[in-house]
């Protein structure tokens, strides 16, 4: 799981539980009762509460895939509020989560066979870790939602289980002072919750660490790729126009098919440079020597520039060669550097330091590379 992925549950509309929401949010979020993940109602002293499914349906899976590609990512939300799993009563544990649907899904699918409450905060559709960083998953919001859902009437204990990654936003001792509930930080991953609950709310040290395995990293790359669509289109158009002008200047015949073919072939080395920064650096992160992300991109970029020049374009002139060796590493280094935000272990101070060094170099190399690229068409 990356800086971004943990989570939990929700609440509802038409009843007292609705606190936060009211008409405006019912409208904004839609009716949870229509969603496939609501499988009934639980009558409580604080009004009816939706019972949620602990299995994911086709719609949930499709939604995850779309979100991973950046489609509708900022509006993939569920209504904040209180929800139930199984047959919870006054003594059942209360989990707290964010109202990002991806977070919510990854929580509820781990809860089958359990009886508990899930309090979904209004984190503006942002996952637990990021929301904690922004303080939307914060002390204030926890206290507000505890009161709004009338939780003190509903449960006899005074215990909330929060995801560990919400700790940057939630101050346990302040929550206790403000609403009487003791905050326990549960495991980082929802998958460890059943074991955590079974052990009497105790987390093994391993449950307290983020994992950033190959799959965790790869699942984050589609969003990086879809962000590249626009720059890629602009760059392709740029190469097309360069080819067109150079043909016009040289007085050669202009026909569409060879023109497009040449454009795509010119694009290839740079397209691969983008893939290196957006996919290969994340995938090979622990295996590329060095620590700065831009350095990792630079290294792979240089290897690719040399490979391309040597194997695919051995007849390239010096300007062409210069454009490969400047532009490709610059692209790969920049995109590699951008993956810092998706990683689980980079600090603000570290990234600032890396950028101070890398950014001027990247900009200089990119500018010189572009000049060489353009010049190569006309020299």
């Amino acid at each position: 799981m990356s800086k971004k992925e943990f989570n939990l549950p929700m609440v509802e509309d038409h009843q007292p539980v609705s606190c936060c929401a009211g008409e405006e949010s019912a409208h904004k979020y839609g009716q949870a009762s229509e969603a496939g993940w609501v499988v009934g109602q639980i009558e409580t002293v604080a009004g009816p509460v939706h019972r949620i499914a602990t299995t994911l349906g086709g719609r949930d899976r499709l939604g995850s895939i779309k979100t991973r590609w950046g489609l509708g990512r900022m509006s993939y939300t569920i209504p904040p509020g209180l929800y139930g799993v199984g047959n919870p009563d006054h003594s059942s544990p209360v989990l707290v989560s964010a109202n990002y649907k991806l977070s919510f899904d990854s929580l509820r699918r781990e809860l089958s066979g359990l009886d508990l409450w899930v309090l979904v905060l209004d984190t503006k559709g942002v996952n637990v870790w990021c929301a904690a960083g922004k303080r939307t998953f914060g002390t204030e919001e926890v206290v507000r939602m505890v009161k709004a859902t009338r939780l003190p009437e509903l449960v006899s204990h005074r215990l909330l289980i929060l995801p560990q990654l919400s700790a940057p936003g939630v101050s346990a001792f302040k929550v206790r002072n403000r609403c009487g509930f003791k905050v326990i930080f549960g495991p980082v991953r929802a998958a460890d919750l059943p074991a955590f609950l079974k052990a009497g709310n105790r987390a093994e040290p391993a449950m307290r660490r983020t994992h950033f395995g190959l799959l965790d990293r790869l699942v984050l790359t589609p969003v990086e790729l879809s962000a590249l669509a626009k720059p890629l289109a602009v760059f392709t158009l740029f190469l097309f126009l360069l080819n067109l002008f150079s043909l016009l200047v040289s007085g050669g015949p202009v026909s569409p098919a060879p023109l497009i073919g040449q454009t795509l072939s010119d694009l290839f080395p740079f397209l691969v440079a983008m893939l290196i920064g957006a996919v290969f650096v994340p995938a090979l992160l622990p295996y590329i020597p060095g620590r700065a992300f831009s350095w990792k991109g630079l290294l792979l970029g240089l290897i690719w520039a040399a490979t391309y020049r040597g194997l695919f374009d051995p007849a390239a002139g010096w300007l062409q060669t210069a454009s490969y060796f400047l532009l490709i590493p610059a692209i790969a280094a920049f995109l590699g550097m951008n993956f810092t935000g998706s990683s689980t272990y980079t600090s603000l101070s570290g990234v600032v330091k890396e950028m101070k060094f890398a950014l001027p170099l990247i900009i200089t190399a990119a500018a010189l590379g572009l000049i060489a690229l353009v010049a190569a068409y006309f020299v």
Partner: protein
Amino acid sequence: MKFRYLNNVVTLKLDQDKCSGCGLCVEVCPQAVYTLNGKVSLITDRDACLECGACAQNCAPGAITVRPGVGCAFAILMDMFNIKSQCCGDACSCSLDNVQD
């Protein structure tokens, strides 16, 4: 495998005289920066710190200070150009508008 980022950069500080030994910093840290040494907490792997701020937020006696923030080049870039990006569904980063607590 424990990933390592740059050394000697983080702003994390612990004043052991103020530490009550509650151990919450050990518990909330996702990077295993702290160890509880008897009745006081100890920073044993400072360079692993990612400055998320969880420890400082949960240190009742205020023994821990850190400039919390998100280590994201894109967010820093947007901030440099004063662009408010709406980020952070999943793979994305947070804007720096509340880096300072």
